[in-house]
């Protein structure tokens, strides 16, 4: 029991912290400065607790205490670490962002913590209703965060879009859960897997339909083809730190539960591999096509997020059910999170008041006036593009290796072709920053040092992660 509670500790800390922050902002005891530090503190403490659990504890399935609702494997712990780190850096960069933008209130930070608690629960969920609850905890907080700038039309449009479509996805998930329950008599992943192993996958129509609905919900949240259309507008409408948070933390949580769901049973996985194969390919190439045409940096990053979802789907296709550690997926998520968060951290102070710099052209000549920031952004872009010696390269290397090892040579080669195409839009920003003359001044003082420091820390992370060896 105590062991189970220890494993749940990060979740408890984050949940309690979120409630505490919400209450104290309701009584107006907090300036938003203090709320920022408070939420960062919650994330940091939870991160350290999770880290100590990672170092000491082995993977313990605590089915006894929670009746098989939750799991704490090395994979879910790693995903939890990534999510908490994302939350921490989001809180820090938000603090700097809101020095230049004025629509902040202390509740903003408590919502980021609430979202994180949903994500953490999602990584551990082993049961469909728990998944639904966790998903909704996370999504509700994110809906509010996306539309936080109430006076901004684009932001309002974004939240409307996301809320409507997200509600559909949630409905699909419950529908699917109901179907699956009807077919198998249980909502627990383990029981479902046992049923599939015993009766086969294609025998029960309700099971097929149910899994299809569940898959739709997951693919929607993960921004995969053909449910990717909302991504660009929503990412564009949300404020920079929130976009970074959605692109990293949310994606990590979704892929964690996705992997947990698929690895339970070999026949369950093999039933979906063919579809995931095509979805991965289309996700990569559609994402690339969208990204190439963009003029706005945020929209390009949103589209490149779709492409990275495609790479993660490759890893998912190549996952082996026998000795699943999820290390490839976790590694890629960490690498991707470090570089994406880094670039959004940098944008949160480079964007200027009211995000006035948003297109590629606005960043022309940045290297002349802000050499360190430009260098950091270049590192993040190179990492996303997968150029060594950054973490992004190692992540791609692991994904390609696991794909070829699983016999998916075509998928690996298509992934590589896609990353060749993606060089175009990543290089474009580097070319603009370094080789073009400045059209405007970047002279204004940085409002706070937190975001620049975080950017620097993330640069170090990008290189440090690349050196960390992973067991496949």
């Amino acid at each position: 029991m105590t062991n189970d509670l220890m494993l749940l500790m990060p979740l408890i800390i984050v949940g309690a912290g979120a409630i505490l922050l919400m209450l104290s902002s309701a009584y107006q005891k907090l300036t938003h400065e203090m709320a920022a530090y408070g939420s960062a503190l919650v994330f940091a403490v939870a991160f350290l607790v999770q880290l100590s659990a990672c170092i000491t504890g082995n993977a313990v399935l605590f089915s006894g205490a929670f009746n098989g609702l939750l799991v704490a494997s090395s994979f879910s712990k790693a995903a939890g670490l990534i999510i908490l780190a994302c939350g921490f850096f989001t809180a820090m960069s938000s603090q700097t962002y809101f020095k230049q933008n004025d629509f902040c209130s202390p509740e903003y930070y408590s919502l980021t913590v609430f979202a994180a608690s949903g994500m953490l629960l999602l990584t551990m969920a082993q049961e469909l209703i728990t998944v639904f609850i966790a998903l909704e905890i996370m999504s509700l907080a994110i809906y509010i965060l996306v539309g936080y700038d109430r006076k901004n039309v684009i932001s309002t449009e974004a939240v409307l879009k996301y809320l409507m479509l997200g509600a559909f996805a949630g409905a699909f998930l419950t529908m699917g859960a109901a179907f699956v329950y009807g077919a198998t008599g249980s909502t627990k992943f383990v029981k479902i897997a046992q049923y599939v192993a015993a009766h086969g996958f294609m025998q029960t129509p309700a099971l097929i339909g149910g899994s299809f609905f569940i898959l739709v919900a997951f693919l929607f949240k993960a921004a995969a083809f053909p449910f990717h259309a909302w991504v660009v507008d929503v990412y564009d409408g949300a404020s920079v730190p929130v976009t970074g948070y959605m692109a990293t933390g949310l994606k990590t949580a979704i892929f964690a539960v996705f992997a947990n769901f698929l690895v339970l049973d070999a026949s369950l996985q093999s039933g979906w591999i063919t579809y995931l194969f095509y979805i991965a390919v289309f996700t990569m190439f559609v994402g690339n096509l969208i990204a190439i045409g963009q003029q706005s940096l945020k929209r390009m990053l949103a589209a490149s997020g779709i492409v990275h979802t495609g790479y993660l789907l490759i890893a998912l296709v190549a996952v082996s059910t026998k000795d699943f550690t999820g290390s490839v997926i976790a590694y890629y998520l960490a690498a991707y999170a470090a570089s994406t968060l880094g670039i959004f951290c940098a944008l949160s102070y480079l964007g200027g008041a009211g995000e006035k710099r948003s297109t590629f052209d606005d960043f022309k000549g940045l290297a002349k006036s802000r050499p360190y920031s430009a260098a950091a952004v270049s590192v993040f872009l190179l990492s996303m593009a997968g150029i060594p010696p950054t973490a992004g390269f190692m992540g791609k290397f692991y994904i390609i290796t696991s794909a070829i090892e699983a016999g998916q040579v075509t998928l690996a080669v298509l992934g590589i072709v896609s990353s060749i195409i993606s060089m175009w839009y990543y290089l474009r920003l580097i070319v603009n920053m370094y080789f073009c003359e400045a059209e405007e001044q970047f002279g204004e003082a940085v409002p706070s040092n937190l975001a620049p420091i975080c950017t620097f820390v993330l640069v170090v992370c990008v290189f440090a992660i690349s050196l960390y060896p992973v067991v496949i």
Partner: protein
Amino acid sequence: MFAHVLSVIIFLPIIAGLLLLATPASRNIARFTGMIVSLAALVLSLDLYMGFQSTGHLEFVENIPWIASLGVSYALGVDGISLFILMAGSVLLPMVYFVFATKEKGYYANLLIVQGAMAGAVCAADMILFYIFWEVMLLPVFFMLGLYGGPKRLPATLKITLYTIAGSLLMLAAIVYLGVSYHAQFNEWSFALDKMAQLNLSGRVAAVAFFGFMIAFAIKIPLFPFHTWLPDAYTEAPTATTFVLSAIMAKIGVYGVIRFVVPVFDQEFARFAVLLAYSGVIGMMYCGIAAITQKDFKRMLAFSSASHMGIIALGVFCMNVQALTGSIYQIVAHATSTGVLFLFAGILEERTQTRTISDLGGIAAKAPVFALYFAIAMLASVGLPGTSGFIGEFMIILGAVKFNTAVGVLAGTTLIIGVCYMLWMFQRVFFEKATPKSENFKDFSLIEGLAFLPVIILIIVMGVYPQPFLSKITPSTALQFASAAPVVAQAASATNAHLPELTIEQK
């Protein structure tokens, strides 16, 4: 001397370069740091050269496991093949800091990084490590070309970058495929170079992987028809970058073919060798003819360099010891001759503010030392007996005739084109009447003269007395064929008998 000499040669310049970029150092500090670091690397490499035992196997091996579960390790080592490319880099690069005194900080810093990365690519004994250095090598070139290049630098930068990255990402897939095949065949993960030779590959996927490697290297070399990025990049790049690209980076492409393609894909290589050899010869002719018509001397040198890379590549594709040894020799010869010619062209451009051949004339009278140096480097690049270029080209042609008479004859006769464009250019630039632009041409200062002197001496020594160099190369090249599969081994047993005879011919 000490245990990790290769690591120091690799990482000393990289760290120095990164530190320069990260600190607000002035350009003078940057230049002197570059000078000292590159000289230190030179001293270390000379020490390495002296201590080299010429066993034919990898020496100065360092091996630290990195990703144990995939068998990826930080493994370094040099043999007779890599030693000479490493030496070419270490010997030639210090000159740049002496000759070009007024460049930006980033120029020197990037130059340092690229030096370290190239050394790393050449010394890496693990495929993943090689790939990492191979890609890192491109980044400084990207920035130098884009920041300090000529007026049309942006398209040239994008062209070379996208071209090379596309090639190398395909190579990454091929590398991973090799690693996975090794795992499947020997039930053990490894990406070590020397283990890949044991792989038994066949079928269509092997051919695809073969081309994955070949295209990446063909782009870097560049081999016809993958040379289209070269004229723009070489012409627009600042002098030092062109020098780095032509003198060393192109050679790493050839090195890659020798190191990866020949031992691992012996069957595919034997199958496609004639095709590749012809593409080398066609590249030689095509770029040679293109060089004749150029009006811009830097562009002419670019084409001449591509033409020479054709013959070096040809030497590798001939699959016998003579041609391969000749290729390695020619790699050094080409680096010291054409590479240095690019530096001379840079000086010429800096002092006359023009690159058009017809704007120049009569420089020999104004600057006799410069003209003499230029003539020696040029004659070496043409392959005049008594210079380094002759030995290499002679051995390659010898090997080519043995491999396939038609290829050999074509390659031999194509060399004449090189003489045409070089001598014609020399005549127009250095003799004839002085033009307004070249009237006030200043000769080398003492420092510049002394900086170039060792290379000029090296060209002549390598041309007159090649034995000490050959004796370090031959064990490795012979081993290359001795260990290979039956197809090539047949050729090796035949060629071993010729070795003594060959060395007598040299003397």
